[in-house]
């Protein structure tokens, strides 16, 4: 079981770095949703099921919905090129 935890933690790190590096806002939001979902699995491994349910509902559900709606509002949903460096 310990190796599953190592893989999940590695996934967290990869997600965080790729959000920092990527230029497209939509892609970074989807990666952030995946990060939250993996985080809720990690709460299960840390024996805190309360936190797992809350993180899955809040982090991967409502926060992502809010981000997506904001993106729709500002019209960056289809923008291919962002001016980030």
């Amino acid at each position, binding site marked *: 079981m310990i190796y599953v935890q*190592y893989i999940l*933690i590695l996934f*967290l*790190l990869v997600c*965080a*770095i790729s*959000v*920092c590096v990527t230029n497209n*806002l939509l892609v*970074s*939001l989807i990666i*952030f949703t995946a*990060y*939250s979902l993996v*985080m809720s699995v*990690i*709460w299960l491994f*840390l*024996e*805190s*099921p*309360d*936190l797992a349910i*809350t*993180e899955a509902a*809040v*982090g991967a559900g*409502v*926060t992502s919905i*809010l*981000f997506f709606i*904001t*993106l729709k*509002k*500002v019209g*960056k949903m289809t923008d291919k090129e*962002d*001016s*980030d*460096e």
Partner: protein
Amino acid sequence: MVSRLFTNYYETVSIIIFGIGFVTLLLNRNIIKKIIGFNFMDTAIYLFLASKGYITGRIAPILLEKLGDTNLAGYQAGTAVPNVQNYINPVPSGLVLTGIVVSVSFTAFFLALAVRLYREYKTLDMHEIISIMNREENKE
């Protein structure tokens, strides 16, 4: 010393994620990217707290005995006590539960501010917003 870092692998990873979130917050010019960085810093701190409460080989802080167990009446009357050796630390779970809900409320607040900024300046880039503000000051 380095071996201790590998023993405390959850803490180490949470510190690294905190750093990545901090760098995202500082280096990206887009406001939504900055908010995502802030969320990363949040979850890193929750991970740190929850890993301090974990104890190997113990289960979540929910009573093992089922309804109708003879021990349960004793626990409630105060004549017997549940075995502490069975459960992990419940305090960090309570703290983090509070933190997660607060984090979603401030994320919504930040996003509302971002929407208002976009309505005013038609961009989400910090540098463009600052240069437009400078121009407006010059005009007046």
